């Protein structure tokens, strides 16, 4: 297991790089051993970190799942342009071509007034109505599909521009619900991110405190190590490994918690999507996300350990 001393047994310490690598292996092994030696308190710390990581991640996962679904919905005609009732069909076509050249417009479809009336009658079943009407009261309507990259504010501007065009009597912005949903999701995402930042801070403080207790309980050992020639780096290393290990385990448990939560929610979620004629949610939490959580956990653990060690270890000096 040990690296052989290149110059043979009894030749003294290893070359620096090998000694360094060996110290790291030793520190890693020692921190695993310590973790196992106090399973309950370490498991609790891991669980606290896992929950702190899982909550914001879960919220973000749901938010991105919903966003993904929305982007796959057929974009409805988001603007209906009602022409001047006096406008004849040919002029409506010219108007449509003009509008189609506007920035932010993907395509325009003309619904002529006769078709519109027919559809209205079919949809409502008011056959009697057609015979009573002397003339068709509906104007020609242009269904305007905005280009997909346009946002709510852009739509608002577009509808104002269109209203100003000659031949247009009214523009109906059809997107309030989507706008609201998007705003809601954006809000949820911001809250999740803020929650994530607060939780990350919580993780650093919690783990930092756990490590501080570890440092305090091993004060004697640190003093002895320093007395017999171990530098700060040597004394620090096991704590850094413990921090990274607990953090990574926290990330892993967080991933498990999220997967369990998603599994539990699969049935209600697919029922919800079925209401919208959509198949169940696509996979929103994959291997990459698990790895991401691991890395985030380990990084937070490392930061906590650095902070804790910086704060407490240097103060422990042999007296």
């Amino acid at each position: 297991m040990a690296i052989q001393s290149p110059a043979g047994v009894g030749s003294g310490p290893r070359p620096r790089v090998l000694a360094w690598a060996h110290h790291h292996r030793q520190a890693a092994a020692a921190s695993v051993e310590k973790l196992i030696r106090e399973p309950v308190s370490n498991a609790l710390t891991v669980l606290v970190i896992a929950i702190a990581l899982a909550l914001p991640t879960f919220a973000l996962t749901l938010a991105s799942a919903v966003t993904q679904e929305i982007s796959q919905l057929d974009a409805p005609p988001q603007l209906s342009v009602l022409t001047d009732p006096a406008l004849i069909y040919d002029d409506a076509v010219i108007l449509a071509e003009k509008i189609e050249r506007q920035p932010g417009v993907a395509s325009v479809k003309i619904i002529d007034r006769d078709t519109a009336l027919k559809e209205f009658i079919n949809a409502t079943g008011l056959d009697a109505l057609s015979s009573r009407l002397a003339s068709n009261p509906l104007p020609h309507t242009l269904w305007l599909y905005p280009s997909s990259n346009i946002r709510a504010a852009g739509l608002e501007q577009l509808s104002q521009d269109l209203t100003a065009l000659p031949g247009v009597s009214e523009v109906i912005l059809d997107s309030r619900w989507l706008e609201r949903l998007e705003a809601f999701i954006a809000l949820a995402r911001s809250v999740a991110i803020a929650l994530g930042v607060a939780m990350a801070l919580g993780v650093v403080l919690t783990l930092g405190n756990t490590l501080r207790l570890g440092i305090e309980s091993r004060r004697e050992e640190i003093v002895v190590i320093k007395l017999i020639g171990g530098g700060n780096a040597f004394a620090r290393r096991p704590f850094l490994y413990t921090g990274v290990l607990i953090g990574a385990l926290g990330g892993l448990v967080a991933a498990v918690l999220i997967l369990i939560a998603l599994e539990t929610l699969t049935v209600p979620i697919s029922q919800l999507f079925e209401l919208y004629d959509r198949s169940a949610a696509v996979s929103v939490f994959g291997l990459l996300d698990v790895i991401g959580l691991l890395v985030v956990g380990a990084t937070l653990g490392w930061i906590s350990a650095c902070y804790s060690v910086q704060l407490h270890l240097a103060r422990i000096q042999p007296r």
Partner: protein
Amino acid sequence: MDIVFDRVGKRFDQRDALIDLSFSMASGEMAFLTGHSGAGKSTLLRLLLLLDRASSGEVRVNGRPLSKIRESGIGAYRRDFGVIFQDHKLLFDRSVFHNVALPLEIAGFTKRDIDRRVRAALDKVGLLDRERASPEMLSGGEQQRVGIARAVVARPKILIADEPTGNLDPQLSAEIMGLFAAFNSVGVTVIVASHDLALISRMSQRILTLQEGRLITLSNSLRGDS
């Protein structure tokens, strides 16, 4: 490694712990450091181990002024020393073997080297059969010998012992002093702080006597000042 104290002073708050202290020890020399408690023995050893810095003057080890050694270099500097503490400073959460192995682990020895050297050191202090024991289960004298094994296991160039025979009976004390003399005979510079004058005077080595922070005798040994 030789040791030079050149007009060294150390002041704590309002009190002078060491005043204008000068002496030198050649490489491979052995000396006793004696004096009443509070005379400055511990302060002198602390300066030598860089647990404290001199307020004035300069300490040089192997020609190197200690004032030039930075915080980050202290670990490496201390690895040239083996130190035996009055209170042993053993770690009770690990076996005798792993206590003795600690300096080798810090220095980065291979596992095989560590096994070999730790056993050799434990053999030297007569505790080879206790390597698996916890230091807690050992008597005071045995704990002191574990401390000695740990101090010599990495073959230091300078051995420092601070009241190593403090609580031991005369026979055990003499045995331990004999061990120090044996290390000295293979070229290790040895400094032993002790107030056990009866024992010291029998050892016929150089004696440095401190009184209120000053060196009052360089030597009263039979061999004379070296």
